[in-house]
């Protein structure tokens, strides 16, 4: 990072933007800051993953020569040793501290697997996932690296969705459980915004909450919503009265939107865009189930509305990414929109000629929108800079 900065500073001096004296001050300040040694930890992350996978494989091999008691005692000794190393590592450099925090949190997987094996436990996956989430939470909360907080958030989502679809007994039960599951990404996003200005959680845990919350809102809910719009059948679900459970994710979405609007240290336009994204994604997902009249539309009309909703939600995501200066998310969002555009034309028009003409016209319209958007973005940035 310093090497990169030196190169930039040399260019700034050459162009007369800063003096040599200021350049030295900047470099001295950057050099004095604690380095997170992220390159070293990136490699360590691979090592940690290999170690944990290795331990789990050893457990899975189920050695006959060791008694069940020996295996469990062995596990506790290893887990306690990792705990002791964590305590020791807290006073050490970033690298060792993070290695032991991650190993300590992830090693609980080996313990859960071992107990399941010893007692021949055959139970739904979400129970094991939930238990690991509880055991690993303290370590995930103190981690300053990306691995454990990201895995924790990803597991939380996998856990709640696995619970929603594993063992639901009736249509109402599926609706109730999936409504609760759909609330989690919203709550994760709300927690991110709420804790951001208050400095309540470690930066990496907060970042993971937002990353996985938004990932679930965009990558999971939009394809699901698209399918709901296209397939119809909402009025059958509406008649059963089970749509009342949708009030749960709507409450979570409202909470997330309020948290986004009330977030500290954020640009006003970004707050509005994020809150709009949350509400739009929820509306897109739930409207086909809440408005039974939509079922009376023709299939192509429903498909068109589904595609339109998809593009609107992803466009808001692209706008938020642009305002937050997140180039990667912006690129992904625009790529997804482009793909959906092409699919929509084939869905709606069917024949190659009409699809071709439609794509040419919309291509021109998109370019015009792009030019307008670019102008608008520059204005927003200028205004934000005062």
């Amino acid at each position, binding site marked *: 990072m310093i090497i990169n900065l030196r190169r930039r500073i040399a260019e700034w001096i050459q162009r007369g933007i800063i003096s040599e004296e200021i350049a030295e001050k900047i470099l001295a300040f950057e050099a004095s800051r604690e380095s997170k040694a992220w390159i070293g930890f990136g490699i360590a992350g691979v090592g940690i993953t290999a170690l944990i996978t290795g331990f*789990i494989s050893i*457990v*899975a*091999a*189920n*050695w*006959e020569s060791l008694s069940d008691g020996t295996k*469990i005692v062995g596990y*506790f000794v290893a*887990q*306690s040793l990792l*705990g*002791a190393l*964590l*305590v020791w590592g*807290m006073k050490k450099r970033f690298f060792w501290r993070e290695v032991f925090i991650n190993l*300590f949190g992830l090693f*609980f*997987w080996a*313990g*859960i*697997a*071992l*107990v*399941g*094996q*010893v*007692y*021949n*436990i*055959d*139970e739904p996956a979400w129970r*094991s996932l939930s*238990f690991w989430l*509880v*055991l*690993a939470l*303290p*370590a995930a909360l*103190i981690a300053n690296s990306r691995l454990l907080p990201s895995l924790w958030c990803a597991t939380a989502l996998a856990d709640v969705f696995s619970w929603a679809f594993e*063992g639901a*007994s*009736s249509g109402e*039960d599926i609706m109730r459980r999936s409504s609760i599951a759909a609330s989690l990404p919203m709550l994760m996003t709300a927690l991110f915004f709420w804790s951001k200005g208050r400095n309540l959680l470690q930066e990496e845990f907060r970042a993971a909450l937002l990353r996985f919350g938004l990932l679930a809102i965009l990558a999971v809910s939009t394809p699901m919503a698209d399918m709901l719009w296209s397939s119809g059948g909402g009025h059958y679900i509406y008649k059963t009265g089970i749509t009342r459970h949708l009030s749960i994710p709507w409450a979570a979405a409202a909470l997330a939107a309020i948290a986004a609007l009330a977030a500290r240290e954020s640009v006003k336009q970004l707050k509005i865009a994020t809150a709009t994204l949350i509400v739009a994604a929820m509306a897109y997902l739930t409207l086909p189930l809440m408005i039974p009249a939509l079922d009376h539309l023709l299939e192509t009309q429903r498909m068109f509305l589904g595609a339109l909703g998809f593009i609107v939600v992803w466009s808001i995501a692209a706008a938020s990414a642009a305002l937050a200066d997140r180039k990667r998310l912006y690129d992904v969002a625009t790529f997804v929109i482009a793909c959906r555009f092409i699919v929509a034309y084939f869905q709606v028009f069917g024949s190659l000629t009409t699809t071709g003409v439609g794509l040419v016209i919309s291509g021109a319209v998109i370019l015009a929108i792009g030019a307008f958007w670019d102008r608008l973005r520059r204005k927003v940035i200028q205004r934000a800079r005062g």
Partner: protein
Amino acid sequence: MNPRAIGLIVVAPIALMALWIGSLAVEVAQGADVLLPVRGYDPRDILRGHYVTYQVDYGSKVTRESYDQDPRCVCLEPKGGAVTEATWFGYCADRDAGTCPLFIRGRSSYQGFLAGIERFYIPEAYSESLRTVPDGATIKVRVARSGRAYVTEMLVKGEPILEYAKKQK
């Protein structure tokens, strides 16, 4: 960070894990043994390794029904070393504790009555020789007072399955 807080971060989850294992050990130790016939095959769990899975044959009283969230129970009568059959099957809420002190709690599904005892973990070394559950296989189940059951042993015609597998290698 406060050393006490770090200590708590380390000790609390380990203690929780110990509590879980302790509760399982106590429940298994206090349970009663029953022997049930089974039929099945050998898949693999990524985390826990190879296991054999099967359907437990509770006898003619236990019928295959659609999935139901409400817990179902089977009543059993231990017969020493002999195979046991269910004496009653129905909703746990309808179980008569006087006539049915020993019972297994589970759920009804399309696969039959499931009580979480439908798998038995085996060492990796025997996974090849135990591709399918051998004929005449039974499971020894420790049934806790709560109705939760744990497989403690798998037998093939009275012989422990690993002994049987060794002969098959």
